[in-house]
């Protein structure tokens, strides 16, 4: 099953199980979804529950908020996180705050899905990774399913959550294929060790997971046993998993497709310094996007985004090799 098919299966299952669930966003219906995630769903569920919206991010995100408060379980699809900047006011000033501002009287059980990430030569305005920004906001939960299993299984607990949940789907993952267990339940609280190791913790999320795994494989051939930790939940961070891993390996390299300064990697490293300082055998390192709007030319874009080579080099450097 592909990642895209997994997301589609998750949406279908949710809509079949709960009549309150509906999908709303640009081109989710007649177009079949910008990334073909919702292909076929309009025919199956009809235009009331698979709702094409005009290009009004603010209005349809806010509508999702209102509908959630009014008893529905909407899934708002913002085509990409690049366009989510237009709904940022609704997300931050309403979705994230209504429970708090109302003293706990109202909650917003809304799921917002967004495609994210660069790497397809779409240039500066279409290549952002804003997961770190959103992970800064109290009042929302931020998920980054990096595996096909998580793409299939994280939606259900997200829909059950009484508070807003943002799901970031790295666009380069949609074509990935793999085995999926459609019956298993997962949580949306914890990170997952994808590969065990003893020499360094590669901590990452979303579209960078496969690069970290590839790096771990390469490092293994040099007898460096890298542990790969998939964060899965970017807010709230599973601090215990991070510290457990790093206190074991004593070294950490964070891989984050956001720009380096003020990145989610910076937050993870700070948690490591706060909680595992005495176990460190060297300063934590990070591999992030270069501080440049993502360029169009392929070689430049490749150089700007985190790569497996960069991860391997960072580990070697950390080990003094």
């Amino acid at each position, binding site marked *: 099953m592909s990642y895209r098919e997994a997301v589609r299966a998750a949406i279908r299952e949710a809509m079949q199980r709960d009549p309150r669930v509906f999908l709303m966003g640009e081109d989710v219906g007649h177009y079949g979804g910008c990334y073909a995630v919702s292909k076929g769903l309009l025919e199956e569920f009809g235009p009331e529950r698979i709702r094409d919206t005009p290009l009004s991010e603010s*209005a349809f995100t806010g509508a999702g908020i209102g509908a959630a408060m009014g008893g529905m379980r909407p899934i708002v699809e913002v085509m990409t996180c690049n366009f989510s900047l237009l709904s940022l006011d609704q997300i931050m000033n*309403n979705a994230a705050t209504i429970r708090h501002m109302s003293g706990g009287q109202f909650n917003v059980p809304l799921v917002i899905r967004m495609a994210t990430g660069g790497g397809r030569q779409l240039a500066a305005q279409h290549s952002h990774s804003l997961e770190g920004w959103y992970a800064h906001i109290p009042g929302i939960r931020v998920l980054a399913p990096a595996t096909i299993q998580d793409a299939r299984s994280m939606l259900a607990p997200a829909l059950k959550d009484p508070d807003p949940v943002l799901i970031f789907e790295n666009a380069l993952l949609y074509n990935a294929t793999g085995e999926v267990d459609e019956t298993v339940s997962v949580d949306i609280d914890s990170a997952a060790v994808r590969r065990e190791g003893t020499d360094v913790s590669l901590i990452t999320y979303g579209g960078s997971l496969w690069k970290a795994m590839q790096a771990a494989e390469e490092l293994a051939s040099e007898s460096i046993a890298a542990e790969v930790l998939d964060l899965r939940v970017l807010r709230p961070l599973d601090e215990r998993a991070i510290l457990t891993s790093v206190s074991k390996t004593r070294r950490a390299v964070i891989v984050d497709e956001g720009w380096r300064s003020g990145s989610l990697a910076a937050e993870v490293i700070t948690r490591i310094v706060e909680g595992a300082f005495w176990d460190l055998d060297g300063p934590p390192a990070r591999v992030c996007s270069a501080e440049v709007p993502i360029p169009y030319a392929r070689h430049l874009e490749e150089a700007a985004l985190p790569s497996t080579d960069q991860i391997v080099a960072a580990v070697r450097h950390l080990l003094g090799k």
Partner: protein
Amino acid sequence: MTRPKVRLDRSHCLELLRQMARIRRFEEKCAELYTQEKIRGFLHLYIGEEAVAVGAMQALSPDDAVVATYREHGHALVRGVPAKAIMAEMYGKQEGCSRGRGGSMHLFHAGTRFFGGNAIVGGGLPVAIGLALADKMAGRANVTVCFFGEGAAAEGEFHESLNLAALWKLPVLFVCENNLYAMGTALELSESETDIHAKAACYRIASEWVDGMNVVDVEAAARCAVAAIRAGEGPHFLECRTYRFRAHSMFDPQLYRTQAEVDTWIKRDPITRFREWAVAAGEIRQEDFVAIEGEVEKEVAEAVAFAEAGSWEPVEDLLKDVGAERRT
């Protein structure tokens, strides 16, 4: 649109007068308390605009939803949020309707489906259409009324929301309280088309304007619109032309308008006008109004006493209500 007549019998006249007087007295008291630093932050008073909230709310039923702005004390009061709870909220006490977490600009009340209290101009419109969407999808006959100022007509969210409401035929009553100034910017300085309700008409929304200083006109128009919405005719837009007698907020020297202009509008005070009319029409007597004033004075005084006696939420609970308690 043919207006159904509003039954202006004695009891209804008293009710309209009482509600407007409540709001007036409450707001005046808030001004006083603010100068004494009991109420902090920003304070936006509704004085002069009472007829809009009072008139519009007459058309609603308890299951309908209300979305308002940061100038919402009057709306909350007439909707039925207890004055004590509102005053305590202004003080920041945990007995306030938002547990002291919201303050003047974020009054919320689940029992009366009062969804705030929104400090972002235009920010409530998308939420309002969402509430309406939920009612429509669930087959409920509720109406969502969304109050906002004419300043919101400049925000993209205004246009997005009107378009979407019309497109999906959502049961929303948009009530634009046009008081001619968006904080300190006059309408003609910010809108190429100053006829707000005409903008709504462009989105194929049934729209009209009324004299917002006339509570009866507002009520009539609102009842008409709500009936149509409930009958499935889609969203309606009501531009209420009104005026705030006081500044945008407390800290505003009003450099942008003349005292002469304010005085002109004060002559059209909705409470005075309605009272004079009702007395002249024989529906009420002057003594009724005096009695109303007395009751209102008492109610506001009790609200203040309640707020004064209220308690502060313990600091240890700071992180409450950011998200639901989780079992982990």
